[in-house]
């Protein structure tokens, strides 16, 4: 198990290296001129050249990448040009390892930018995750147990509705009606759990979390329902009934135990995808998370910021994959890691 984890971690790190190269290459291949954004509107050709040099964009891509990689491992200083650093030492920014670069748009290191916003995205993702798992699985199991009856049809219809309405629409409706027009809840805002306490943290997050969870919940209802129905046709469920076990044991123990395995895999990966930011939900509710940050980064061609966010999301997804695979081996005795 330990050797397996180590091997997976190693190959995951390798994958990240490759991904950083690819992201670099892609942006170089594109016709973007990040120095133009950094320099501003009234920028002379000379100033543009200076900015480019200051940012290090004048160097070959391999050198740029090597500096980036060194920064990740050992940290670095900005601006990149040594002459500039000596000319104005008061403007030098220290970027500790793992340094993901310096965002010219924000005038901050990518590391600081992300670490400021990550708690927002993570909080949002976790609360949404809890909501969709609990409600989605519960309703899915209920629908399966009452298959073909009114309750099942109702739940399936509900999931279809939740699935059909796009997040930006639902979020907008929630914000406009539930919060502003009817005043049922305060305007959603993120309050750090450490400062405001768990209650303010949770209530502030609730509306966006529901918005985010809704579409996932719909999917999980359908998936859980299908898994339960499929498992119920398994021979071992018939065996469990033939033993004389009460229905609640057959469902609650034998069926759910089998359904758990695919659900863990699926939910682990879904959660991982969200930890790196929920772009639409964060934008609607004006939450300063990684999702909103990435929108800005792309709009401003902020190359270091984009590379940083891409690598962060990739790292989360890779880590989630490893965790899910290892959990799989714990849940399913037939699975041998190796």
């Amino acid at each position, binding site marked *: 198990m330990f050797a397996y984890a180590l091997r997976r971690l190693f190959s995951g790190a390798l994958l990240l290296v490759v991904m950083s190269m690819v992201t670099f290459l892609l942006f170089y291949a594109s016709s973007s001129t990040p120095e133009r954004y950094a320099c501003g509107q009234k920028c002379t050709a000379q100033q543009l050249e200076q900015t480019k040099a200051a940012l290090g964009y004048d160097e070959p891509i391999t050198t740029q990448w090597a500096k980036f990689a060194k920064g990740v491992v050992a940290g670095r200083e900005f601006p990149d040009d040594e002459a500039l650093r000596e000319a104005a030492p008061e403007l030098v920014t220290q970027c500790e390892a793992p340094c993901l670069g310096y965002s010219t748009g924000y005038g901050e290191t990518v590391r600081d930018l992300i670490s400021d916003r990550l708690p927002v995205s993570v909080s949002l993702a976790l609360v949404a995750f809890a909501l969709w798992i609990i409600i989605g699985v519960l309703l899915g199991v209920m629908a399966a147990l009452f298959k073909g009856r009114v309750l099942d049809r109702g739940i399936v219809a509900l999931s279809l509705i939740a699935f059909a309405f796009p997040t930006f629409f639902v979020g907008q409706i929630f914000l406009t009606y539930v919060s502003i027009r009817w005043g049922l809840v305060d305007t959603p805002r993120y309050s750090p759990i450490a400062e405001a306490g768990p209650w303010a943290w949770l209530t502030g997050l609730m509306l966006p979390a529901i918005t985010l969870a809704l579409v996932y919940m719909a999917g999980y209802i359908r998936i859980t329902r299908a898994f339960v129905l499929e498992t119920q046709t*398994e*021979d*071992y469920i*018939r*065996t*469990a*009934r*033939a*033993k*004389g*076990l*009460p*229905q609640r044991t057959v469902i609650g123990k*034998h069926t759910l*135990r*089998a359904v758990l*395995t695919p659900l863990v895999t699926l939910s682990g990966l879904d959660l991982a995808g969200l930890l790196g930011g929920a772009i639409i939900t964060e934008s609607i509710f004006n939450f300063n998370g990684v999702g909103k940050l990435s929108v800005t980064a792309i709009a401003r061609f902020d190359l270091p910021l984009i590379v940083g966010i891409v690598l962060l999301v990739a790292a989360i997804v890779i880590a989630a994959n490893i965790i899910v695979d290892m959990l799989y081996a714990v*849940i*399913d*005795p*037939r699975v041998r890691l190796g």
Partner: protein
Amino acid sequence: MSATTQSGPAPRQAGTSEPLLVVEDLKVHFPTSDGVVKAVDGLSYSVERGKTLGIVGESGSGKSVSSSAIMGLFHGSNAQLGGQIRVDGTDVLQLSEKEMRGLRGREVSMIFQDPLSALHPYYTVGAQIVEAYRVHHDVSKKVARKRAIEMLDRVGIPQPDQRVDSYPHQFSGGMRQRAMIAMGLVNDPSLLIADEPTTALDVTVQAQILDLLQDLQREFNSAVIIITHDLGVVAEMTDDTLVMYAGRGVEYGPTKEILTHPEMPYTWGLLSSVPDVVGDTSAKLIPIPGNPPSLLNAPSGCAFHPRCTHRDKVPGDLCTTTLPELVPGNRSMGHLKRCHLADPEAIYQTEILPEIAPDLVDEER
């Protein structure tokens, strides 16, 4: 319809006391959007304590469905059940799900075809046997575990005190079926239904499992139903045989009688389809032409008539219009057949036997 489902007396019914299991005019119908599937339609048989009944027939003949009905596994499904299933005098079809649960696994237990899929992959073999025991016995986990080890030992699993903690996938196929049998017998059931217990196993392991079942039956004196399409298993294991076709019994009687003097063309077909390893190589394998009928829209008259090669020996269009009743044939009161042929024995001896077992005919001469 009522006349067609009536059947003769069960063979070898002893005096006044009723056999342990009596199935009378059992019907299991599944309403579907395409119509009613009559999986079992008017089935009657009985099994006494210590005796073994073999139920044979092709896939989809209603063998397994009828035994699932005995287990009460259709409670809560949309199946429509009719007739009676009496276990020790109690009609299980009238029981509530809760009462049925008390019977299931304790009085009547079942062994399934493929032990790999019939055992839960996520629980140890021991845990599954312990669970089966504790549903019906109010004992501690420790006591139940001891019982599980004892049962695993009894069914011939080596080092049972260690294997009890293994998962099903860590067992070989034969071992798994032994474990399944241990689970089936952990509560001393008076009726054991084995649904194709050896079909998924290697031939060499099959014999071991059948031996084990026979031993255990003697020890526990339980009634056993073996569902199979292997006539070798029937010959080896059973006292009585019921041949099923399209949800009905088509021939029923003592196994020896059925195998040596079959009176129904479908049974002839089954016998003709069995290869004989030590027998004459000139013996032919004659498959039954065609496929089993759809139970949604069963053929009129005798359900076997579209595949029957002896239809021309029956006068008129009796075979296609009238369902023959399951009644005693010409040989004995205990040998029931559902066929219009007037003298099937003569046809069997002169037409079928020389084809499938020439050496047997020679011997008799």
